[in-house]
């Protein structure tokens, strides 16, 4: 297979990894809303961990992006 075509496919696949991160971020904020709805005075404590969790999950998506960029660099 042509390397250029293969690298395009690889980049697309790497971008598909964002789906998992999307699910993860949905979980993080969904659970936060659930928790806050149940116990509104815990919001400040919960939100701190939510942002850390969000950052960790989001980083996964960005790894996918970085891999796509690396493939792009290798293809040349």
């Amino acid at each position, binding site marked *: 297979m042509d390397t250029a075509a293969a690298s395009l496919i690889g980049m697309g696949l790497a971008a598909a990894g964002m789906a998992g991160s999307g699910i993860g971020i949905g979980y993080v904020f969904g659970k936060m809303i659930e928790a806050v709805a149940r116990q509104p005075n815990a919001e400040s404590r919960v939100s701190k961990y939510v942002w850390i969790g969000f950052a960790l999950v989001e980083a996964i998506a960005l790894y996918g992006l970085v891999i796509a*960029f690396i493939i792009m*660099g290798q*293809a*040349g």
Partner: protein
Amino acid sequence: MISVAHASEGAHAASGGGGLPQFDASTFSSQFFWTLVSFLALLFLLNKYVIPAINRVLDAREKTISGDLSNAENMKKEAQQVLADYQAKLRDSAKKAEQTLADAQKEAAQNREQALKELNAELQKKQDSATEAIEQAKRKAIEEVKVVAADLAIITTQKLISKSVTKTEANKMVTEAISEMESAGSKALN
């Protein structure tokens, strides 16, 4: 992704193998150096000037606030003191008024007692004098009755002795004597 620039512009193509400019290792040393320099400079300057300044402001504000609070506390204490004083004074004056009232009542009672005693004494005296007068009159009357009785006895006896009397005469004489005595008694009593 799309990176047309590298292909077309020779300057960029020479600097790296394509892809993201961020992965171009030739720029790393200078960026590493300047990141360190500028971050450490920022850290140093923040630490030297900014943090003490903000701490100063925050401390001053806190001091002002706590000073105000303690002032307010003092004022409150003072006000409470004044209130307590006032209440004590009020209590004192109430007590004084009560005292005065009690004194007045006592005096009034004393006065009344005194007056009652005097009145009683007067009455007693009057009663005594009246009793004495009555007693005197009684004694005088008895004295007079005694005299009259003696006179009656004498008259009766005289009459008895002077003549023997019938029953009707005797009765008549007694009635006479009594009426005589009565008139004498009433004369004496008057």
